[in-house]
């Protein structure tokens, strides 16, 4: 088929190949069904898959997940791995919101326990976790020294400061702390990060109370503590203004670095530096520091979720609110993968894509060894989200990666136009879903129909074997920016 003048070949029901041509160093591999492929017409994202395939040192295909959409440099939903010696790192392959991610907490409460107290619970979450543009906390203002600890130690710092329990750290990628270097983070970025820790932000970020509405894999669901009607808390946020500033700062640097190292770019937003260069080393230090900020940010919000449960239910209930897992979906990481029968150390960029390591992977904590890494795929605020686990198929085919969300199908302008004559919070309340938001405009822009049906996306990754469905969650209350 032709998609925006690009020839795309169907491999099977869930796979499409963009043949190598022109300056491409490899082919493109898109995971989608025929309906999702049709949605890509008119979008530049397939061209972005091609552009990524031009970058030096790319290993394997330039990969796109079924929630692929137009990003900056890399498409959102893009995965690409680069050889540690011959490859590059690109801030555009990570995104502005470094370590934007999702964590899921499960509670000992059932949907029936929570329903009569839902309004109070959602109000407590809204009051306890600042949301909206530039939101900040009056009760958590970091000194320079404390911010340095956050950037080096991430969620570990937060747990040591009493925002959580040591068990939480076993349920995060990298134990909630990567090798960050605060010295490579600019003063501007640090200024933006000083009073935003523990805030959810705006746009598609949220804190959601939900419940388990379906189980697809009893063994994995039981291991994760999820049974029908279990009440859960989703937190979707990232590194806030600090991360945006780090990305911005290093894009400026990488534009120069690309010239310095003679790297030809099909799109300036793909600017990058060789992984062996000082520019790459500095970016990795700053990116990991911002990732640590994001881990700590989600950890603090978990603390305030537990506090809300204490206030509305009891301290005992709050003590049993356990972290299921925390996934990063905007990050680059060094990992060892088998390529052509040999183990190779690669820098895997996941931008709008989630790591999905299989059972028995050494990086997983003991509790996940027999089921694989938990993966969370949020949908929109009116329908459902999914819990998956990583698979050997993902490890073999996508460098251990799967999708990350639904993806928009409607522009913000169009969504606002559709929502303007309606009362969206009232409509959702009639369906049993309470919304609290800092801005009406955010609610209007985030109406459920503005997003693709996440079930379509998840069915593709499940069908293709790059993720395995475990459970479906439905929302009861949502706090938005």
């Amino acid at each position: 088929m032709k998609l925006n003048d690009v020839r795309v070949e169907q491999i099977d029901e869930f796979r499409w190949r963009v043949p190598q041509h022109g300056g491409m160093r490899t082919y493109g591999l898109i995971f989608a069904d025929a309906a999702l492929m049709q949605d890509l017409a008119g979008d530049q994202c397939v061209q972005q898959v091609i552009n990524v395939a031009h970058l030096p040192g790319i290993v394997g295909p330039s990969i796109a997940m079924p929630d692929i959409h137009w990003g900056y440099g890399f498409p959102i939903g893009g995965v690409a791995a680069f050889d540690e010696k011959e490859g590059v790192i690109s801030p555009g392959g990570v995104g502005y919101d470094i370590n934007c991610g999702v964590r899921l907490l499960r509670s000992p409460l059932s949907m029936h326990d929570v329903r009569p107290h839902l309004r109070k619970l959602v109000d407590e979450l809204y009051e306890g976790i600042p949301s909206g543009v530039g939101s900040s906390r009056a009760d958590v203002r970091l000194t320079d020294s404390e911010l340095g600890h956050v950037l080096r130690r991430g969620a570990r710092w937060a747990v040591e400061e009493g925002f959580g329990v040591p068990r939480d750290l076993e349920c995060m990628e990298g134990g909630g702390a990567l090798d960050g270097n605060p010295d490579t983070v600019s003063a501007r970025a640090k200024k933006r990060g000083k009073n935003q820790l523990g805030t959810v932000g705006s746009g598609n970020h949220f804190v959601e109370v939900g419940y388990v509405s379906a189980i697809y894999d009893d063994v994995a669901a039981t291991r994760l503590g999820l049974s029908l009607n279990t009440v859960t808390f989703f937190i979707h946020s990232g590194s806030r203004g600090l991360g945006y500033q780090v990305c911005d700062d290093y894009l400026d640097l990488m534009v120069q670095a690309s010239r310095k190292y003679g790297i030809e770019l099909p799109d300036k937003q793909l600017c990058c530096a060789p992984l062996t260069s000082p520019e790459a080393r500095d970016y990795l230090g700053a990116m990991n520091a911002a990732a640590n900020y994001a881990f700590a940010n989600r950890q603090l919000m978990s603390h305030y979720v537990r506090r809300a449960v204490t206030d509305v239910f009891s301290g005992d209930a709050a003590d049993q609110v356990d972290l299921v897992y925390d996934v990063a979906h905007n990050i680059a990481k060094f990992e060892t993968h088998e390529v052509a029968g040999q183990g190779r150390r690669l820098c895997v960029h996941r931008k709008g894509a989630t790591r999905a390591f299989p059972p028995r992977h050494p990086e997983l904590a003991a509790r996940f060894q027999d089921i694989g890494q938990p993966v969370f795929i949020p949908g929109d605020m009116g329908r459902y989200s999914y819990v998956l686990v990583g698979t050997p198929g993902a490890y073999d085919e996508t460098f251990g990666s799967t999708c990350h969300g639904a993806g928009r199908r409607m522009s913000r302008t169009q969504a606002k136009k559709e929502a303007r004559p309606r009362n969206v919070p009232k409509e959702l309340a009639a369906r049993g879903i309470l919304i609290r938001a800092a801005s009406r405009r955010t609610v209007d822009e985030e109406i459920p129909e503005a997003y693709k049906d996440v079930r379509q996306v998840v069915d593709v990754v499940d069908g293709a074997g790059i993720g395995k469905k475990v459970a479906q969650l439905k929302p009861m209350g949502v706090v938005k920016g």
Partner: protein
Amino acid sequence: MSYRHLPHTADIKIEITAPSLEQVFQDATALLRELTVGSTGVEVRERRDVTVRGDTPAEQLLQFLKEGLYLFAVDGFVPAGWVSDSITPTEIQGAFEGESFDPNRHETQPEVKAVTRHDLALDRTPDGWLGTIVFDL
């Protein structure tokens, strides 16, 4: 005001047309005001001196918008207008005039993460200048 929104699924894409480079930055300031407080009014109560550098007009526009968003992010400063002191091929000097964000008077808008280089352009035309900018939300 001579900017308009172009279709974009996830974020915001803007086209600016202006008779002069000076007017481009006036329009870009009006755009910053819309992105930070929507259509609500902004009073002139303080002034923020700004110098931005870029080796092309497009790069200057990018850095100018980044500076405006940074002032809003760290200080809650909302621009009402722009006064140019000098515009050279590599540098723009001047000041934003405006005030601090007031949640009682100003309408909260969704957060703008960044100004991107995607499709970034600012070129001379027979009528003046034509630019495109994409913001990541």
